[in-house]
C-alpha cells in the first residue's frame, strides 16, 4: 500500500512539474531557442524569425492597448485629455510610411531599419515609464505589470529584429539612429494634472507606435516570406 501511495504521489508531482514547466514555457512568447547558445553556424530560418517577431509585436500592441484603456478608465475620465491629446509623439520625427501605398513603396530594408529605429527610441521611455508608474499614487498593478512586460518584450523584439536585419541584409550596419525622448520632466511634475496628461500622452503614443510596428512587420512578413501572398 505504501509503495502504491508513494508512486501515485511521485506521478502526480511529476505531472505538476510538467504542467508548470509547460505554463512557464508558454508564457514566454516565442522564446523557444532553436539555436543553443554558443552555436556558431546555427541559422534560424527567416520564416521562424518573422513568425516570432510578429507574435511579439502583436503581443506588445495588445498589452499597450490594454494599458492605455486601463489608464483612460482610471485617471483620464472627464479630464478631456482626448481633445488636448492630439499630441506629438517623440517618434513622429522618424519618417515612417503613413498609409499602405507609402508602405508598399518603401524598400523593405529601409522599413526594417525604420522599425529598428522606432524600437530603439522606445527603450528609454519604457524604462522610465516603469519607474514612474511604480512611484504613482496607488500604483495600479494592471498598468505596472503591463509596463514591465512591454519593456522586456520590446527589448526582445529589438534583438529579433536585429537578427532579421542580419539575415536580410548581412554586412550593412547603419548607425544607431533613434529619436530621443525628452518627456521625463513632464512625467515627474508636481502638478497632478500635468503629470497625468504626460502619462496619457506617453501611453497613447506607445499604443500607436506598437500598432505601427505590428503592421509593418506583418506587411514585411507577407512580402518577404510569403511573397505577398499571405
Amino acid at each position, binding site marked *: 500500500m505504501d509503495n502504491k501511495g508513494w508512486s501515485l504521489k511521485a506521478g502526480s508531482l511529476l505531472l505538476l512539474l510538467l504542467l508548470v514547466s509547460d505554463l512557464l514555457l508558454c508564457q514566454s512568447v516565442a522564446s523557444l531557442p532553436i539555436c543553443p547558445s554558443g552555436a556558431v553556424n546555427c541559422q534560424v530560418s527567416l520564416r521562424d524569425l518573422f513568425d516570432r517577431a510578429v507574435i511579439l509585436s502583436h503581443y506588445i500592441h495588445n498589452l499597450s*492597448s490594454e494599458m492605455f484603456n486601463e489608464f483612460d478608465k482610471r485617471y483620464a475620465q472627464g479630464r478631456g485629455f482626448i481633445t488636448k491629446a*492630439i499630441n506629438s509623439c517623440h517618434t513622429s520625427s522618424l519618417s515612417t510610411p*503613413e498609409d499602405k501605398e507609402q508602405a508598399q513603396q518603401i524598400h523593405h530594408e529601409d522599413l526594417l531599419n525604420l522599425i529598428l529605429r522606432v524600437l530603439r527610441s522606445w527603450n528609454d521611455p519604457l524604462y522610465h515609464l516603469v519607474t514612474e508608474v511604480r512611484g504613482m499614487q496607488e500604483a495600479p498593478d494592471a498598468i505596472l505589470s503591463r509596463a514591465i512586460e512591454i519593456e522586456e518584450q520590446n527589448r526582445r523584439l529589438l534583438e529579433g529584429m536585429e537578427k532579421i536585419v542580419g539575415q536580410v541584409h548581412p554586412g550593412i550596419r547603419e548607425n544607431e539612429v533613434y529619436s530621443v525622448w525628452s518627456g521625463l520632466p513632464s512625467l515627474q511634475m508636481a502638478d497632478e494634472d500635468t503629470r497625468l496628461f504626460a502619462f496619457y500622452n506617453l501611453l497613447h503614443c506607445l499604443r500607436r507606435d506598437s500598432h505601427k510596428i505590428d503592421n509593418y512587420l506583418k506587411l514585411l512578413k*507577407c512580402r518577404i516570406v510569403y511573397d505577398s501572398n499571405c
Partner: protein
Amino acid sequence: MDLWQLLLTLAVAGSGSAFSGSEDSSEKPKFTKCRSPELETFSCHWTDGVRHGLKNAGSVQLFYIRRSTQEWTQEWKECPDYVSAGENSCYFNSSYTSIWIPYCIKLTSNGGTVDQKCFSVEEIVQPDPPIGLNWTLLNISLTGIHADIQVRWEPPPNADVQKGWIVLKYELQYKEVNESQWKMMDPVLSTSVPVYSLRLDKEYEVRVRSRQRNSEKYGEFSEVLYVTLPQMSPFACEEDFQFPWFLIIIFGIFGLTMILFLFIFSKQQRIKMLILPPVPVPKIKGIDPDLLKEGKLEEVNTILAIHDNYKPEFYNDDSWVEFIELDIDDLDEKTEGSDTDRLLSNDHEKSLNILGAKDDDSGRTSCYEPDILETDFNASDVCDGTSEVAQPQRLKGEVDLLCLDQKNQNNSPSTDTTPTTQQPSIILAKENKPRPLLISGTESTQQAAHTQLSNPSSLANIDFYAQVSDITPAGSVVLSPGQKNKAGISPCDMPPEVASLCQANFIMDNAYFCEADAKKCITVAPHVEAESRVEPSFNQEDIYITTESLTTTAGQSGTTERAVSSEMPVPDYTSIHIIQSPRGLVLNATALPLPDKEFLSSCGYVSTDQLNKIMP
C-alpha cells in the same frame, strides 16, 4: 390692429421658439460613427437632427484638420466627399487618409460648431462582413442522427489581407431555423471552420462577422447561410439518446449493496453485539455502602444474615461489646516470632484490607469470605457505637487468659509500644468506620477476643471517634470521651501494679484513659500523689487531655464532685459547669439524663444515635 398683429406674431414666434427649444437637443446634428473598413479609407456619419418636414436654415458642414509632421495645418478643410458614403456622411478616400495621424473633425451648422471629434484612423477600424459563405458536409454519425459540416467564407474584398496590411479575425454564429438564440463559436484567424453535431432533421442558419485582430470592434454580420442537411435515413434510430435512468438505478442499488456488505463485514462484531446482546452475568449482591452510611441496621442485618456466623440474637442482647484494640502499624511486634502473633497480625492486616475493600465494592464475589468477614470486626474496636461499659468487666474476665499468654510474652514492649500506639489511635480516629459493622462485629470479637487479648501487643489504641470538647490555652485538644487506657495496660498487670502503671501511664504521652483506670490510679495512690502524678501529666506535652483527667483534678479539689462522679458513671459528653482555673473544670455531671441500658459507660464513646436519644 397693429398691436394685435404684433401680439400674434410674438405668440407664434414664442411658440415656435418654444417648440424649437424643446427639440433643440434632437435637432442638433451629431456624429454617430466614424469608421474605416480596411485601414485605407474612412468615413464619418452624423445625424441630421432635422424634424420631419422642417429643414434647418443652414446646411451642415464637416471640417477636418490633421496634423502632419508634428504641426497642425492651421486651417480646417472641408469634407472632400459628402456623397459616397450616403446621406449625412463624409467619405475620405485613401489620398486623404493617413494612418497613425491624429484627425479632428467638426460639424458646423449655420457657421456654428455643433460637434467635434478627434481620433486616429487605426482606432476606428471595423471591417466589412465576409462574403462567399458556403458549407460542406464532413461526415454523418453512425447513429445517423448527427452530422458535421465545414463552413467556408471569403474575407471582405476591400481588406487587403493578402499583403498583410490588415489581419482579420472571424466569429461564426449558428442556430436552428426556429430558434431565437444564436450559438457562438470561438474567433478564428482562418477563413473556414467546422461545425459539429448538427441534427440531420433540422435546418440551420449560419453567419460570420470579422474584426481587426488588434481591435475589439466587430464589423457587420455577413449574410445568413442556410444549411439544409440531407434527410435521415429510414434505418436510423428513432430514439434519441435518453438518459439511462434504468441503468443508473440498477448500478446504484448494486453499489449500495456492496457498500452495505462491506460495512457489515467490517463491523461484524459490533453488529453481533447489537443484534444478540450478551446475557448479563448475575451479580452477587453485597452490602450496599449507602446502607452502612445511613446506619440502617435492619437491612444490613438481613444482608449479613446469609453468613453462617452471624447471630443477631447475640448482638441484640449484648450491645456493649467489648472492642478489642488492635495495633495495626506496629511492625516491632512482627519481629517477635510467635506463630500466634504472626497469625493474628496477618489476620488483622487482612481484615483491615478487606474492610477497606468491602466499602468499595459490595458485589465482589471472590473477596467475600465469611471467615474473613468475622475477623474484620476486630479492627473496629473503637469506642464508637457501643460504649465499653462491659469492657472493664470483660477485661477483668479475660485477664486470666491474657495473663496466661502475656506472661509468656514480653511485657516490656507494652510501654514502648504506647507512644507508637498514640499514632494509630489518632489515625483511626479519623476513620469513619460504620457503626453497624462495629456492633455486629462485637459478637465476633467476643469469640476471637481471647485470641486477640492474648496478645497485648496487639492491643491497639484505635479510636474511631473522639469528640473534641475543648482546646486548652496550651494548644492541646481536649477530647471528651475518656477511653480506657490505650497505653496498653495489660489487664494482667493492672491489679498489682496499678500504681506504678498509673504513674507510668500518666507520664506517658497518651492522655486517653478511662475514668475507671484513672480512678484506680487515684484511689490507690494517695491524694497528693495522684495530684502530683496528675500534674506532671499536664506538665508534659499532652496532646490530648480528656475531660476525665480534668474531671479528676477538679474532683480532687472538690471531693463532692468526685464523689458524685465516682458514684455515677460520668457520661461521655458532659457539659462544663464552671471553669475555675486554667486547670480546673467543673463538669456538670447531672446535666445529661442517663439512659437505662445503653449509656452505662465509664469511658467510651457515645454514638450519635445514642446521643440523639439522650439529648432531646
